[in-house]
């Protein structure tokens, strides 16, 4: 057996500490990451674009700050991969869609500016399901990303490129976006930590919109401490995003040491029945470990959470059909010429969007159309209130909730790509947190037939501090072989 590759990969916190003290140059860190990308990118396809030249010059700028005795930031020299639905000035941004192929944003997303201010270095734009619509990256117009744990399986999605990149050591940390589980589900399937923060905690200025009442940017990392540190850097109040919360910035990474003595943890029993045996046993083992660490653990029934998936598949497509109206061939991106503007709009959109995006636009347009709005969209928003009430009742008795992140481990490429309902079901346990605007994190916990499974810690709005403390306790009890970074594997040893 080869030596554990993780020893070669310092965490983001360790990397920043080495760079800040001058023990290791940011250039050396970035060069070694770019070498690893060159070695594995062809078989994994994590990236739509590797920004090697910009990354090296950013590294030199960090090294110059260190040499001048200035503060290079808490993430100095840390290689970060950006999901390719976050705008980067002068660097192409595709959202995984032909309709934006070749588009060069005239501005940076707020998270990109925040990363730069924190000293982090963007090494590339990662692959995703087109406009973040999907759970496998198979809906990308630019090819499918492969899971480093088994190249025949999907990495999950929609932030599959970001999760796979971190899992294979092609970036130390990454950013994803999560509308119904698009950070947590691929993180679970790739054996990394993924956080969906409270709605409004991270600015979405420059994030290409999918479903605006649900979308949130968050970190992907190999450790809970790295995820918490990255969230501290990107959770800045932003007047350019009207949903950005103006709350006191927290120090989640230092809260981790507080432990979980006396915290009340509820295991969501409604989710357990729908999870594969390996995911069920993972959650039960995590629950026992939390109890041993001093938490009060009980099972709790929250039946209204099971309504979340259906409500989501009315709300998210409705909002998407509205948000994606902007791709009309007029101001940016693809245009297919036609004799008049309406025909140009229709031909451009037909040529530029892939099948899943068209499916959701059709569904969303239908449920918002005259005569159906109340029956579908307004009804789904009422059910959303029921989901939020279910959480509120549970949080009267518990500080956090615990569940599997996904119903199963990573599935084979192609298995669900022609069955929309089967694909949608992989987000069953993650969607309720988006509907309620709550934070949740997936922590890699165990291996199930050679594939990682994740345990999800859910918390009420702005409950990140407690959520991270419990996540760190789950991490301490986890199988260390169930998390990245790993060497990409042709096939699991099942």
């Amino acid at each position, binding site marked *: 057996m080869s030596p554990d590759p993780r020893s070669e990969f310092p965490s983001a916190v360790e990397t920043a500490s080495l760079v800040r003290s001058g023990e290791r140059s940011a250039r050396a860190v970035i060069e070694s990451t770019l070498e690893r990308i060159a070695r594995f990118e062809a078989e994994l396809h994590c990236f739509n674009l590797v920004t090697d030249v910009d990354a090296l010059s950013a590294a030199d700028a960090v090294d110059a700050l260190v040499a001048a005795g200035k503060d290079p930031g808490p993430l100095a020299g840390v290689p970060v991969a950006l999901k390719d639905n976050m705008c980067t000035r002068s660097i192409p941004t595709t959202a995984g869609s032909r309709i934006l192929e070749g*588009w*060069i944003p*005239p501005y940076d997303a707020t998270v990109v500016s925040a990363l730069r201010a924190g000293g982090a270095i963007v090494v590339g734009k990662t692959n995703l399901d087109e406009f973040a619509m999907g759970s496998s990256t198979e809906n990308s117009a630019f090819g499918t990303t492969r899971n480093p744990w088994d190249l025949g399986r999907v990495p999950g999605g929609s932030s599959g490129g970001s999760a796979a990149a971190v899992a294979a050591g092609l970036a130390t940390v990454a950013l994803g976006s999560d509308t119904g589980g698009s950070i947590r589900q691929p993180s679970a399937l790739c054996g990394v930590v993924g956080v969906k923060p*409270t*709605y*409004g905690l991270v600015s979405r200025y420059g994030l290409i919109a999918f479903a605006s*009442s649900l979308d949130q940017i968050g970190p992907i990392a190999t450790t809970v401490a790295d995820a918490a540190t990255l969230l501290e850097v990107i959770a800045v109040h932003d*007047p350019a995003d*009207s949903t950005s*919360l103006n709350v006191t910035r927290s120090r989640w990474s230092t809260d981790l040491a507080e432990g979980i003595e006396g915290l009340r943890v509820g295991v969501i029993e409604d989710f357990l029945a729908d999870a594969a045996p390996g995911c069920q046993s993972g959650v039960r083992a995590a629950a026992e470990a939390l109890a041993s660490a001093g938490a009060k653990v009980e099972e709790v029934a929250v039946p209204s959470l099971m*309504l979340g998936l*259906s*409500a989501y*598949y*009315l709300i998210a497509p409705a909002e998407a059909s509205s948000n994606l*109206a902007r791709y009309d*061939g*007029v*101001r*940016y*991106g*693809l*245009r297919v010429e036609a*004799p*008049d*503007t*309406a*025909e*140009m*709009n*229709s*031909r451009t*959109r037909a040529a530029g969007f892939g*099948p899943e995006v*068209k*499916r959701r*636009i*059709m*569904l969303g*347009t*239908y449920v918002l*159309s005259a005569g159906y709005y*109340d*029956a*579908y969209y*307004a*009804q*789904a*928003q*009422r*059910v*959303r*209130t*029921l989901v*939020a009430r279910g959480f509120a009742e549970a949080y009267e008795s518990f500080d956090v909730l615990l569940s599997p992140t996904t119903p199963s481990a990573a599935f084979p490429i192609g298995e669900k790509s022609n069955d929309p*309902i089967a694909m949608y079901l992989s987000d069953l346990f993650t969607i309720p947190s988006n*509907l*309620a*605007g709550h934070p949740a994190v997936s922590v890699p916990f165990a291996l199930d037939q050679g594939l990682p499974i994740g345990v999800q810690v859910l918390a009420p*709005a702005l409950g990140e501090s407690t959520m991270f403390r419990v996540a760190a306790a789950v991490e301490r009890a986890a199988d260390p072989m169930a998390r990245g970074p790993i060497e990409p594997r042709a096939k699991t040893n099942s």
Partner: protein
Amino acid sequence: MADTSASFSRSDVAHVASLARLDLAEDEIEMYAAQLATILDHVAAVTSLDTSTVAPTAHPLDVSNVVRSDVVGPTLDRDEVLAQAPATESGRFKVPPILGEAP
């Protein structure tokens, strides 16, 4: 409440496609007719629920409107923005004729 037992004819789907400005091919219209019906059947658990006493969610968190002072701030550079457009003329976006009139 509208009838939500889902079934879609070709012309239903074609009508939605025209509302969505999607020039769908025949085989796409057939595929979406079947798939939209399947998806809407699947969400019937939600559409058939009695929610007469439940208010719809307007925002996931309890927050109030955000306003700012009405002052001029920096904006994106016009030439940089227009450089990304498929067609421009005299500092504006250029489109094919609308309402059947030549430009």
